[in-house]
């Protein structure tokens, strides 16, 4: 698919030094549309959605806030810590104002794996299906998010007992 002028402008916003020091694309030379399409395909293959992934990220972030800056246990076997640094970052897609510089660290103690993401990752994934370019400091691999955060696939969701 050819990249639209609007998406081209977003890609310009993602370059180093425009909105953030390092930008959002890392060493990725692909057009933004290709990055989006490839990650979209991977998320579909796993049978889930950007929204489901972002919702789980936000849920764990919100639970982690109760730790007041320290790790806190979150069921069934997560340890979560939420840190903040000064300032905020605007979205390269425009709106919704400044997003706080908040880091969420999630340890999956059952898998012995850890992942760190920011509030802008949650926004970019949930609203735009963007996981950042390859080589970006804050690139999120969709399969890692799904595995470590234990994001339910659509199949798993339909297998849940319906007692509502």
């Amino acid at each position, binding site marked *: 698919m050819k990249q639209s002028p609007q998406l081209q402008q977003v890609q310009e916003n993602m370059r180093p030094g425009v909105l*953030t020091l390092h930008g959002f694309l890392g060493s990725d030379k692909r057009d933004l549309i290709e990055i989006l399409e490839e990650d979209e395909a991977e998320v579909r293959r796993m049978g889930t959605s950007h929204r489901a992934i972002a919702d789980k990220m936000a849920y764990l972030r919100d639970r982690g806030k109760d730790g007041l800056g320290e*790790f806190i246990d979150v069921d069934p076997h997560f340890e979560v810590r939420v840190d903040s640094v000064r300032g905020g970052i605007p979205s390269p897609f425009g709106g919704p104002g400044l997003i706080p*510089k908040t*880091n969420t660290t999630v340890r999956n103690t059952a898998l012995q794996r850890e992942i760190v993401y920011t509030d802008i990752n949650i926004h970019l994934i949930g609203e735009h299906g963007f996981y950042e370019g390859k080589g970006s400091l804050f690139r999120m691999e969709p399969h890692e998010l799904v595995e470590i955060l234990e994001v339910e696939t659509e199949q798993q969701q339909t297998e849940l007992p319906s007692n509502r």
Partner: protein
Amino acid sequence: MFSALMISVGAVTGISALLAVLMVIADATIGNYGEVKITINGDHEYEVKGGKPLLGTLMEQEIFIPSACGGRGSCGLCKVKVKEGAGQFLPTELPWLSDEEKENNIRLSCQLKVKNDMSIEIPEELFNVKEFQAKIAKVRDLTHDIKEVTMELADPPEINMVAGQFVQLRIPEYELTDEPVYRAYSVASNPSDTKHVELEIRLVPNGIATTYVHNYLKEGDDIIFNGPYGDFFLRDTEREIICIAGGSGMAPIKSILLNMAERGIDRRVRYFFGARSKKDLFLVDEMRRLEQELPNFKFIPALSNPEEEDEWEGETGLITDIVASHMETGDNTEAYLCGSPGMIDACVKVLSEKGVPDELIYYDKFG
């Protein structure tokens, strides 16, 4: 056919070269704003060369506006009031400014270029801010993710500051950044030691500055910082004091307590420090020593999730619950808080419920 193609390529190349030359000439002439005057707070005047961003222009005059991103427009901290000579708001400023700030002519100094005479307002205390060259005298682990860094000043050789203030550390180019960045850290040492500045820095995952400090910085290295900044300091009253901190939020509180001990300020102080388990707790011995020097000081560490091997017999629970259980009333009390925004917000709520007036709750939010 071939010659026509070569002529076309030659023509395009020629036009491109001509345009490049024109751009260089335009940059040197149209973009040459010559000498301009910046008036600060109505009575300080500086003749400067126009054309550069206000933040950098002021830095060349040794006036340092707080900025956590080194002028890249990604922290929104370097705001100044520009009374005259600013021109229209730039698209890169707008995300950082509220409607009220725009009405009050607040501008982002790293984005705004100095093109003509300007009149600006900055807090008077920023005239005391200087850039310091220092050497790393000591680096030691306080916990598995917090390091204490002691800097010995070289030029200027001394710093005058108030306990509780912060400085901005300049992180040089290294693997994670191809240009210097600045990050703010509270000072942990007693300001009476004017030749040294001590910081406590917690590793932030993927953080450019904290990764540098934890993985690259070593004793003997040269370092640059500027400061002091901030209005988080002990107020001169007779009220009881509640201090609450977590993690590297220990730093400014420790500075304040050391300074109190030295000056013989023996007000009642209760210091609540939150950590998850014993491995996140640090400087306990130093706090116990301060309890000996300050008879009315009590250090109350609390672990939210102690490990079995910790054999912890102290307070257990979230720091907010521990504060609530120890405080009967907030009468005649003022509070000093340092930590994550979430911790600060939760503690402010508890203190307010106990009756501590909002205007007597002072805090230094990391966020």
